[in-house]
């Protein structure tokens, strides 16, 4: 099977430049539409969750900006992290995040997601959310008021509309780094069930740091990593392996 999307999809070979131009226009239109209909998955990880019911119900009424709570990650656009994250929850958050389909956006609510907040000296909670998943917007405050939550939604909508909210791509481009941070907490054998590298190939978002020493142990599940046209840094831990040759297509 051909893995080249240009050949697999179109009958004729599309010239790369033409494709990217068309793609950009379509993306902009899609972004514009998407910004007006967002589904929010709120994971009640912390106390900030208590301000969400007022935001969503009649008084502050989130629906008038086209947002609705969504109960499953696969249909959601926004992952709302509503406060402090214990390490145990972070694991579930990473899995939830990886299940969401791109484009996806993450909002960190409250000072706990920014720098640990009140619980800066707690052994159980993480301090910097953006070390583990990419974050688009933060809301400062402990806890943020519904008005602040709405403001951040409007801000995010504007950024999606302008095509600026691209943090999710960073997860694919630098997956090795994110995975490394996660492994630091969960142990070196940690991996989520989602095939992030496969998705990165699919979205054509493979970057220089997608693969590296931390993703090395994923390879035994996915032999096709070797056939990628990617220049990969020689991982320090894989001494036994022969020098990989760069396959050009």
């Amino acid at each position, binding site marked *: 099977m051909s893995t080249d999307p240009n050949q697999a999809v179109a009958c004729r070979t599309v010239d790369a430049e033409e494709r990217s131009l068309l793609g950009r226009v379509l993306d902009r239109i899609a972004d514009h539409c998407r910004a007006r209909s967002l589904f929010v998955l709120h994971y009640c990880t912390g106390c900030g969750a208590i301000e969400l019911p007022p935001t969503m119900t009649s008084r502050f009424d989130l629906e008038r900006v086209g947002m609705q709570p969504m109960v499953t990650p696969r249909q959601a656009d926004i992952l709302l992290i509503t406060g402090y994250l*214990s390490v145990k929850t972070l694991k579930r958050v990473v899995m939830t995040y990886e299940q969401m389909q791109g484009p996806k956006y993450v909002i960190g609510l409250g000072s706990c997601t920014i720098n640990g907040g*009140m619980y800066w000296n707690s052994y159980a909670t993480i301090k910097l959310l953006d070390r583990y998943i990419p974050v688009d917007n933060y809301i400062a405050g402990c806890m943020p008021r519904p008005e602040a939550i709405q403001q951040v939604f409007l801000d995010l909508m504007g950024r999606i509309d302008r095509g600026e909210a691209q943090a999710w791509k960073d997860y694919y481009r630098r997956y090795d780094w994110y995975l490394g941070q996660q492994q630091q907490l969960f142990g070196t054998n940690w991996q989520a069930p989602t095939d992030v590298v496969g998705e990165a190939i699919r979205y054509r978002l493979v970057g220089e740091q997608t693969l590296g020493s931390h993703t090395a142990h994923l390879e035994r599940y996915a032999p096709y990593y070797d056939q990628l046209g990617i220049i990969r840094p020689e991982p320090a831990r894989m001494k036994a392996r022969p020098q990989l040759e760069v396959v050009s297509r």
Partner: protein
Amino acid sequence: MRPENYKPVQHSASHEYELYFGPNHPGIEGNYALKCVLSGDVVQSLRADGGYLHRGFEKIMEERLWIQNVALVPRICVPDPVPMEETYARAVEMLGGLEIPKRAQWIRALMLEASRVCAHLFYFGGHAATMGMYSNMFWGVTDRDLILDIFEEITGARIYHMYITPGGVRRDLPEGVLDRLSKVLDYVESRLPEFDNLFFDNAVVINRATGVGTLTTEQALSWGVTGPNLRACGLPFDVRRDDPYLIYDELDFDIPTETAGDAWARTLVRREELLQSIRILRQIIATLPKVGGPIRCALPNPLAWNVPAGSVYARTESSKGELGFFVVSKGGAKPWRVHVRGPSSMHAVHVLERLGPGSRLEDVAQIMFSLDACPPEVDR
């Protein structure tokens, strides 16, 4: 999951299967998980899995000054934070032998009861939502917001007030707030008939909730059930009356009970309690202008405050049950040990695990909500 990665687990042939309920699930209250073993849709056994909200409260409280902990304690229980502040403050006062001025006691009771009204309004919405009825949620949350506005006026914050400090309260009530509170109470009371039409007199709801998660009186006593859940089994026990604190012995209120002990009885008890809280608040509103005096007793320099050594167990009736703080001081600038006995710790683990088996899967969320289990309090 990658297909290469998938290894089917070999089970012996059985009609049972395991289902993970939560932690991120709309039917569950907060960030909490249940592992159910089911046969068909009947729960065979149920295991609670907590710790998703663990912050190590008891540990980090030992690392902070007595006065710094005032900011930390309300965060133990999110929907009903005021009893946490009150219990901690009272424990410190008992240790330090502080006498709280009368006016501060009345203001604290006002805060406690207003918080109970909030928590119960939230509860009605939550219980209805577990049956797929969301209008109640919208109403309850919106009415609760009116009380949050009063809180904001008094304390400057909507949810976490940090208003009740050891020795009294942080500042006096603003001008005219009692009138506004009394208007809000009138409004909340006038809304109750509408709640009745929608929820409490709704035949579908009644049928759906009766006989679900029934606790007998003996079970309730031996499993350590407290609060409205105990009163729904016919036992009129209330910390406010039996172990009175603040000025509760000067107030006139009833302790509503039901006898059925099921989810519906628990909801009815809370509806009645809402009315009782409004009654208490009215008494407070009538009395408070006559109670003068300071709002705080003289405190030592809070940054260099060594609370005398000793240990106390302070208890409060929160909207969920009996809340206890066991505080040990070694005479230092920081607490030596704080143990929080959250009412939900009993309800969400011990009771839920025993009530679950035999019920239907669709009722599990309802049982959990009707016990008003609050996960942050379990995990601390």
